[in-house]
């Protein structure tokens, strides 16, 4: 294809459909990048190909996706607002003693050069140590900032889950082992997130309360601990469970401290999902 020749529309259609082998597509793209007329025709061919998207059976995405998108946008806006944090790159200290060899015959000159070289070496060492310290501090600060961003993303994610229309609320009632206990669970099966709070009596130090998701099929799945070892979020606890696991019920049992792979102790809270 010479630079004067334009690409036939049939070829542009194949390009728009993604139906050309890589080498042919690359050759056409090279021409199009310098040819406005073919670029306009390619945009037209892409528009024609886009009609195929309307041949697909339409489905609505889950409501949580919109909540996640909006949470991501807000997190990004906040991050941008706080990103005016001028970080100067730390330049490696290139100072040091030049590789000079003192002339043994230069007499008094050594009395000047040797102390000067020693002083320079000391300054160089001090600067190098200071640079390492600054670099290390910067790395610590960066890690702290990254951790804050991760925390914020997790919070936005949890807020998104709480607001999502497919999040269900399950009330937990005390069993005969803890008649006055109560609790509430927010559960989003699609995201695989459980958030909960509970009013429970204190336990001996060697025991923990553990939340269980009782699936429609199969054995109970641990949904975290209410206490040390659990993940607190404000006044609630939270845990990730396998996504898309339909829940039949939620229950809290008393287990050895640190929790158990399957429930072994008495059930104190129970609620049907």
């Amino acid at each position: 294809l010479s630079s004067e020749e334009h690409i036939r529309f049939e070829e542009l259609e194949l390009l728009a459909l993604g139906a050309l082998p890589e080498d042919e597509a690359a050759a056409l793209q090279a021409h199009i990048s310098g040819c406005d007329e073919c670029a306009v025709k390619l945009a037209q061919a892409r528009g024609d190909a886009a009609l195929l998207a309307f041949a697909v059976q339409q489905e609505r995405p889950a409501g949580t996706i919109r909540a996640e998108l909006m949470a991501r946008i807000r997190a990004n806006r906040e991050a941008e607002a706080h990103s005016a944090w001028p970080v100067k790159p730390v330049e490696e200290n290139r100072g040091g003693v030049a590789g000079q060899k003192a002339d043994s015959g230069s007499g008094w000159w050594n009395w000047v050069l040797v102390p000067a070289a020693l002083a320079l070496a000391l300054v160089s060492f001090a600067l190098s140590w200071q640079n390492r310290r600054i670099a290390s501090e910067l790395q610590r600060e960066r890690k702290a900032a990254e951790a804050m961003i991760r925390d914020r993303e997790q919070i936005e994610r949890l807020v998104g889950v709480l607001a999502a229309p497919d999040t269900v609320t399950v009330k937990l009632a005390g069993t005969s082992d803890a008649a006055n206990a109560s609790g509430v669970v927010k559960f989003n099966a699609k995201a695989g997130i459980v958030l909960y709070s509970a009013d429970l009596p204190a336990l001996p130090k060697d025991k923990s309360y553990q939340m269980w998701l009782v699936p429609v099929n199969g054995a109970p799945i641990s949904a975290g601990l209410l206490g040390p070892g659990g993940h607190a979020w404000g006044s609630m606890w939270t845990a990730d469970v396998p996504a898309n696991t339909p829940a039949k019920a939620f229950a809290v049992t008393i287990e050895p401290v640190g929790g158990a792979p399957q429930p072994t102790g008495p059930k104190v809270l129970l609620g049907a999902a």
Partner: protein
Amino acid sequence: VTAQGTTGETTTDWSLLARIGQKDEDALSALYDRYSGLVFSEAKRILHDTGAAEEILQDLFYQVWRTAERFDPARGSLAGWLVVAARNRAISKLRRKSGKTEEVDEKGVSLKVDVESRAAQSLLLDKVRTVMGNLPENQREALECAYFEGMSHTEIAEKTGQPLGTVKTRIRSAMEALKKVLS
């Protein structure tokens, strides 16, 4: 289109984009309502994976949020860009190893049909499905292999056992039929 950027009851895409450029979350939400189903369904049709399709959906609208000012109403269609970009990203995920697909710039898709209202989308969906349903099986297969599976014409020829020229003719005939929905 009025000075307020509306066509009848519908706010135009460009009016929404202008507001998104001013960081108006409600405008993004309205645009998401308008096209999320289309983008998600297309990506899921290609990938057969709900999670991956949702990821593409969210990433595309996040990109619109961040780069709204790059879209040029005079040179392209936002709806067209969304479906072409979604398609390319989905194919890229599908054929991750080949790295075959291109990233389409924001001015690069000219969709000559109004899809800004639910009614207009619904009408186009009906028309395109009717055309696709009436295509000869071998033409539809060739078109779908290219668009939804990211196969080149030579790969389609290998798959179907047909000469390359036949595959090209089938794709061209199918596209001619498809474009009639625009008239």
